[in-house]
C-alpha cells in the first residue's frame, strides 16, 4: 500500500446541489432524490463521472438538485441526449430521470429504442400515473376511466404497462420500486448501476396534488402486506404479514394461494429473474386487483452494451487500417496533378 493521498470518501452532501428543491411539499420525488443522494457515494465512482439527464416534467427537475453534471433537456428526449453523452464518452455513469408522460408518451419512441440498443444507461422512471407539471391531465399510465381536467367524463384509453413495454422492447434490466421504501429504492438504484446495459427502473411515485393515493394499496399499513410482493431471485414468491401467501401458477395463469393444507411452500413459484416468460407473467400483475404488486428485479440478463460494440468497431478499424491519415484520405480514389 502506498501512502499517497487518499481521496476522502464522498458523502450525501457532496451530491447535494445549492439549488432550492421546488417540488410540492410531500411529493414522492423528495424521497427518491434523498435515496439517490445517499446511494451515489456508495458506488465508488468519482463525482465528476456522474451525469444526470432529464426531460420535462416534475421529476425532470431532479438533475438541478444533484451536485453532479446534469442536463435538463426537452420533453421526451432525455433518453436520446443521454445516448449521445454515453456514446461520446462511455466512461461516464449516465442516468436518465423521467416520468410516465416524458418516457412513455412524448418520448415513447426513444425509450423503446434505448432499451433495445442496451446502452449502459440507468433510467429512473417516476411513475405517478398523472401529468403533474401541467396540472393534472391523465397520463399514458393512468387507469382507464380516470377523471381528470382533460377527461371530465373519464379517460377511454387503455394504459401502458411499463414493465411489459420494456420487455417488449428487449430491455435487459427491468425493476420496480416505490418512493416510500427507502431501503428498497437504494437497493434498486445500486442494482441498476451495476447492470451492464440499459436498466429500466420504474419508481411508483405519489403525486399528492393531482393523483394522491395512486399506490395507496402498496403503501398503506392496512393493505400493504397483502399487496406488496418483494421479488428475490431464487426465492419463492411469498408475501403477506406472515408470508403465508404465495403465487401459484395454474398453466400460465398466476393466482394467489394460502400456504396451508392445500399448498405448501414448494408449490409456490420461485423467482428467476433471467426467465423472460416469468417476467412477462410478472408484468401482467400491473393493474390486476386480484394480484399483489411485484417490487424488485423483474428481469435481468447480461448482454454486451451498445457503446461497447460501437467503440470496439472503431478500435478494430484502427487495428486494421491504422490511425486515419487525413491527407491520404483526401487523396483516395483517382487523383491527377496539374503543373
Amino acid at each position, binding site marked *: 500500500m502506498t501512502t499517497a493521498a487518499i481521496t476522502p470518501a464522498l458523502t450525501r452532501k457532496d451530491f447535494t446541489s445549492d439549488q432550492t428543491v421546488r417540488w410540492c411539499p410531500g411529493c414522492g420525488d423528495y424521497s427518491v432524490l434523498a435515496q439517490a443522494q445517499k446511494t451515489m457515494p456508495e458506488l465508488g465512482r468519482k463525482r*465528476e463521472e456522474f451525469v444526470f439527464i432529464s426531460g420535462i416534467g416534475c421529476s425532470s427537475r431532479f438533475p*438541478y438538485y444533484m*451536485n453532479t*453534471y446534469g442536463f435538463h433537456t426537452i420533453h421526451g428526449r432525455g433518453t*436520446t441526449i443521454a445516448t449521445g*453523452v454515453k*456514446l*461520446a464518452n462511455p466512461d461516464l455513469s449516465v442516468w436518465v430521470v423521467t416520468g410516465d408522460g416524458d418516457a412513455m408518451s412524448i418520448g415513447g419512441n*426513444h425509450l423503446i429504442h434505448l432499451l433495445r440498443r442496451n446502452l449502459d444507461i440507468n433510467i429512473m422512471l417516476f411513475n405517478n400515473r398523472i401529468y403533474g407539471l401541467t396540472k393534472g391531465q391523465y397520463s399514458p399510465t393512468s387507469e382507464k376511466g380516470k377523471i381528470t381536467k382533460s377527461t371530465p367524463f373519464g379517460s377511454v384509453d387503455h394504459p401502458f404497462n411499463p414493465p411489459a413495454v420494456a420487455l417488449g422492447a428487449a430491455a435487459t434490466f427491468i425493476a420496480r420500486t416505490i418512493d416510500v421504501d427507502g431501503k428498497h429504492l437504494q437497493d434498486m438504484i445500486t442494482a441498476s448501476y451495476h447492470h451492464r446495459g440499459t436498466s429500466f427502473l420504474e419508481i411508483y411515485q405519489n403525486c399528492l396534488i393531482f393523483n394522491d393515493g395512486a399506490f395507496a394499496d402498496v403503501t398503506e399499513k392496512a393493505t400493504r402486506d397483502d399487496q406488496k410482493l418483494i421479488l428475490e431471485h431464487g426465492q419463492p414468491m411469498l408475501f403477506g404479514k406472515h408470508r403465508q401467501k404465495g403465487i401459484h401458477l395454474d398453466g400460465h395463469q398466476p393466482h394467489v394461494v394460502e400456504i396451508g393444507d392445500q399448498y405448501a411452500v414448494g408449490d409456490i413459484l420461485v423467482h428467476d429473474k433471467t426467465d423472460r416468460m416469468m417476467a412477462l407473467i410478472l408484468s401482467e400483475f400491473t393493474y390486476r386487483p386480484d394480484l399483489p404488486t411485484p417490487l424488485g428485479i423483474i428481469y435481468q440478463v447480461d448482454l454486451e452494451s451498445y457503446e461497447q460494440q460501437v467503440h470496439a468497431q472503431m478500435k478494430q478499424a484502427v487495428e486494421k487500417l491504422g490511425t486515419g491519415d*487525413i491527407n491520404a484520405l483526401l487523396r483516395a480514389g483517382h487523383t491527377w496533378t496539374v503543373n
Partner: protein
Amino acid sequence: MSELKKGSKKALEQIEQVTIRFAGDSGDGMQLTGSQFSETTAIFGNDLATLPDYPAEIRAPAGSLAGVSSFQLQFSSKDILTPGDQPDVLVAMNPAALKVHLSDLRSGGTIVVNQANFNKKNLALAGWEQNPLDDASLDDYTLISIDMTRLVENALKELNLSGKVMARSTNMFALGLLYWMYDRPLESTQQFLAAKFKKRPEIVEANLRALETGYHFGETTELLPAHYMVPKASLPPGTYRNIMGNQALALGLVTAGQKSGLRIVYAGYPITPASDILHAMSTYKNFDVLTFQAEDEIAAVTAAIGASFAGALAITGTSGPGMALKAEAIGLAITTELPLVIICVQRGGPSTGLPTKTEQADLFQVMYGRNGEAPLVVLAAASPSDCFDMAYEACRIATKFMVPVILLTDGYLGNGSEPWRLPDLDKLRPMENHFATASGDTFNSFEIEPSTLARPWAIPGTPGLEHRIGGLEKDAVTGNVNYDPINHEAMTHRRQRKVDIVAGDIAPTEVYGDETGDLLVLGWGSTYGAIRSAVDRLRAQGYAVSQMHLRHLNPFPRNLGDVLVRFPRILIPEINMGQLVRIIRAEFLVDAKGLNKVQGKPFTGHEIEQHIRQILTDKKDG
C-alpha cells in the same frame, strides 16, 4: 481543325466543350454510366460539372415517363461552373427517355438511341403515337439509332448469360460508344468494373465486352464520320480529384475532427438526399468518427447535443423534413450554448415534396423556424467542392464561438460533382475550443469569454466543474435557472450577439466584376455556377454586371450593405419563391428583385443571362 488519330481512320476534331445527357429507365444504369464518364473525363484533365436526376421511386414502372433517370455533364477545356444549359448529345436508352428530354436538346444536337427498345409497348408507355425514329420528328437533329441490344447479345453470345444480364450490360455499350465519340480512354472504367463486380467474373466480362463493343462500333460504323476531342483544361496547379458535394462535405467534417483533435459524433437518420453523408462518415471509424443511425430525426439531433455536452464535435445531417423535426432541439442547443453542426441538404418541399430534386426553400426555415428568439449561424456551400470548405467552416465556427451552426447545401450540390483541387491542410484556419478545467474559484458555467462570447465547455468527467444546464432560461453568469425579466432580456440579446460577433471572424465577400455597375447579381448556395456563367457572358458582351455570392447567410459579411448601395439594381436568383430577397430588402432597405424558379431543377446560366439582358434592355428603352 482536324487530325487523324493514330490507328483510327476517322477524323478527330477539336472542340472546346460538350454537354452530354445520358437518359434511360431507372433500371438502365444511367447514374453509373454518367458518373463513369465524369470520372474518366476528370482524370483526363477537363473541367466538368454534373447533374444527376433520378426519380424518387426506387423502381417506377419500367418504360414509363416517371421512371426516367438521367445524368448530365458538361466538360470543357475551359473553366466551367455548370453542368451545361442545353445538351449537345442526348443518349436515350428508351422512348420514355427521349420523350422527357428531347425538348432540352439544342437544335442540331445529336441523339443516340437504343433502337431495340423502341418497340410498340415502350412507345405506347411513353406516349409516342408513332415511332419517332421512323418519321420526321427528329429531322432537326443528328440521329444515331443503333440496335444496342442485338450488338451486345452477339458480343456476349458465348458467355452463356441470361437475357437479363445481357440487357443490363447495354449501358456499357452506350458508354463505350461515347468514349469513342469523345476520344476518352477506357482504362478507368475497366478498372472500376473489375473492382465493382470482383466476386462475379462473368458480370465483369460481360460489361467489359459491351464497353469495348460500343467503342469499336464507333470506330467502324458509317453513322459516325468523325469524333471529337476536348483538350485538357488549364486548371490552377495542384492535385485534383473529382468529387461529389456530399462526399466533399463528409471529408470537410473529418478534416475538422482531425484538426481539432476532437472525436466526431455524427448522428443521422436516413433521408434523401443527405444519407450519403451518413454512409461516408460511417467508413471513417479509424479517424475517431463515431456514427449513430438514430430512430428518428429528433433522436439524431438530440444525441448530437448530448455528444456535444460530453465534449465531442457533434454533427447531425438531414434534409428539409428532418430540419422541421429537429427545430425544438436546435433551440435547446442555442440556449445551452453548445457547439453543434446541423447540415441541411435541401430538396423540393413542402412536406415530402420532391425528395430527389433540388430546391433552396429551407432558408426561412433554418433562419426562423424555431420557437422563441432563436438566432443561429447559417452558412451555405456554393459548389460541390465548396461543401468541403463550408463543412470545415461550420465546425470551426461552432467550436470557436460555442454556438450551433446550420450548413445549407442542396440535392444538386450533394449529388453533383466537379474536379476539386485538394487543399493544403496546413493553410486551413485553426480549430479552437473552450475546454475548461477547475481553477479553484467558483465555477460559472455561463460566464462568457469577451472576444468570442463563448462560455466554458466544461465537459462531464472534469473534476470540480460539475454543473447543470438546461432549456429553462439561465442566469448570465452562474447558468442557474433564472426567471428574472431583465436577465431574460439580457440573455436574449446575448444569444443574438453570439451570432453577430461571428461577422468579425469571416472574410468580407468579394465582388466579382467591377465594384460598381448597372446591376449586381446576389446569390447564395448552388446558384453560384449558373450566375457566374451568366455574368461572364454578359460582361463579355459589355454589360456592367457584377456578382456577389454569399456563403455566410447569418450573420452576413460586414461589407454586404456597402456593396449593395453601389448598384442601382440588385437581382437575387433563387430556387424558391424569394427568400434571401426578402431578408435583404428587410435588412438593407434596398430594392432588390428576385428571379425565381421552383421546378426541382437548377437554373441554367442562359435563363439568368436572358433575364438580366431583359432588365437592362428595358432600362435602355425606358
